[in-house]
């Protein structure tokens, strides 16, 4: 019983991490039609900012709060300078964002070297439920993920900003004619997606430690999750992330990890092939 519970908690917490990483990716892919190869590097940057704060004696939580704003700001600048030119051509966008990601990743690698740098958990220890112990920080990640998900959903479905974002997504020309500044909306959306990645990086760095290839690890999983969930809505990628995250965490418990690793991708690609619109089709929130 206890081990089942621990397994369930592990699966849940890994699922939450994937959801957190995919949120930004999904928002950018759905709202802007860009598969952002630099998203993994935004995650890396968030982690790096947190590490910088820690190594300079600033409280870790302060670094975690600052990370999304710094990465989001960078995302806004990059969108204005570079990403904006790629909207028409999805493949060129992939290559361009890949180049961006390469620059960021190698810069960070140059700064930290080939090391694995650890950052302690701001909330250490474990939560005891009867005889079972679960990591307090992982629990916090789950809670924050739920909060962020709810926040994003409300932002997109209940606020006038969300309405303008969705209008721009559905019909840019009409949105522009209605007086919505679509370039600004695109810029803000991209910055928001980048900020979410930064937050994800900041939160997961105590779990995975900081290394230059941290982002790549999640990037392909993130893409697969977005495709499985379905591009074009907010809920789709989140659902996809939940499925992929849960599968990748759950399968190694029942089979050899190598097989499980590959099987998740194979299953996902087969699923997408036969259901290109994803789990949840359609536009909207």
């Amino acid at each position, binding site marked *: 019983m206890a081990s089942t519970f621990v397994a369930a908690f592990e699966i849940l917490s890994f699922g939450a991490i994937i959801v957190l990483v995919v949120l930004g990716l999904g928002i950018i892919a*759905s*709202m*802007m*039609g860009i*598969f952002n190869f630099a998203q993994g590097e935004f995650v890396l940057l968030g982690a790096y900012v947190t590490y910088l704060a820690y190594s300079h004696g600033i409280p870790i939580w302060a670094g975690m709060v600052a990370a999304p704003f710094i990465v989001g700001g960078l995302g806004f600048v990059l969108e204005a300078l*570079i990403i*904006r*030119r*790629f*909207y*028409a*051509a*999805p*493949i*060129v966008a*992939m*290559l*361009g964002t*890949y*180049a*961006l*990601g*390469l*620059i960021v990743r*190698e*810069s960070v*690698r*140059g700064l930290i070297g080939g090391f694995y740098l650890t950052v302690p958990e701001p909330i250490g220890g474990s939560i005891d439920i009867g005889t079972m112990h679960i990591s307090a920080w992982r629990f916090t990640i789950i809670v924050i993920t739920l909060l962020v998900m709810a926040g994003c959903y409300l932002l997109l479905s209940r606020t006038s900003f969300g309405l303008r974002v969705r209008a721009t*997504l559905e*019909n*840019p*020309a009409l949105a*522009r004619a209605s007086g919505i500044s*679509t370039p600004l909306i*695109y810029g803000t959306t991209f910055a928001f997606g980048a900020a979410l990645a930064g937050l994800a990086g900041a939160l997961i760095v105590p779990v995975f430690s900081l290394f230059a290839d941290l982002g*790549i690890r999640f990037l*392909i999983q993130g*893409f*697969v999750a977005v*495709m499985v969930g379905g591009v*074009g809505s907010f809920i789709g990628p989140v659902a996809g992330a939940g499925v992929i995250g849960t599968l990748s965490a759950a399968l190694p418990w029942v089979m050899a*990890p*190598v097989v499980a*690793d*590959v099987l998740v*991708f*194979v299953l*996902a*690609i087969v699923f*997408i*092939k036969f259901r*290109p619109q994803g789990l949840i089709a359609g536009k909207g929130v």
Partner: protein
Amino acid sequence: MGAAKQALRATASQAPGVSMADNGLDRALPAQQAAAGRKVLPIVEGAVLITALILPLVLQDYLTVFATRVIILALFALSFDLVWGYAGIMSFGQALFFGSAGYGVALMARDLKITSIFLVLPAGTLIGLATSLLLGGFLLLGRHPSSVIFVALGTLTGSYAADRLARGWYYLGGQNGIPSIPSMSLGSYDITEGPVYYYFALGILVVVYLLCRFLVRSQFGLALAGLRENEQRIAFFGYKAQHLKAIVFAAGGTIAGLAGSLYAFHEGFVWPNMVGVVISTQVVLYVLFGGSGTLIGAVIGAVIIEGVSFWLSDNYRDIWPILLGVLLLLVILFRPLGLISFVLGERERVGSFGVTRKEKRNAAP
């Protein structure tokens, strides 16, 4: 996501590539010169070939070994160029075919002690063909045409999954790969790295290059160009667009398999990166740099990137990847047709199709 307005702007911003074409036309403006066949492409190709032929005579031995590696990588780049530059299929997982052929021949050499050149090279090529047929058939064929994004991400995921498999599978050597593969043998003669291997690889590259050149200049190549420019229209003309794509994808995979088996025997070891995302993206860089849609562009791109990275790796190992990223970004933004577009005009890049010299002569008077 119909960002239509942006679409227009982006098209306009890609104009540098087009304006370059004007330059090319300007140079060939006098009609006589054009008729006299003053073309840049054969000159570039000839120059590259002659340079490649005399290179081992002037290089030191260790540099010849490096040059051989570049030749093999150029062959690999050719395979990606065929798929992306000519058919417009973004294969982000080209290393899957390269690496699985490499692993295949490495296993043959290790477990079956087969190193005969007449067995390993065809085997590697067949492995490339088989994996690309499988993956390409699955991703490209079917009732509904697959989206470009799906194919790009599908190949990427395939390559990544293969990488993970190779890392985790003890039989394939795990993280370390398969070390110390014996040399390829021709009868009792071992083809070891050095000038012999260099000229051998160069010979294969030239043959494959000529085959590709014939392919893309044939009527089939014309259909491919149509496919790349406007897939829907080609489908309305009655071509089976998905089949065409699958054929080119398999052809690319075959070449990649040949390159992979040459590479495995040349380096003497295979390791998981060879099937993975690292090499897959590397080949994309070669082709984008050199110029996709021209065969020689792929070769030049591989030579330049590998050459510069070899040259810089002593002193500037850390900043080279950053520099590479910046250069790539600049190329994508300002010179989408690659470095070759500095000398090659748009008309010549597109070229003519399926017209033999004889027909031209008949049509001229």
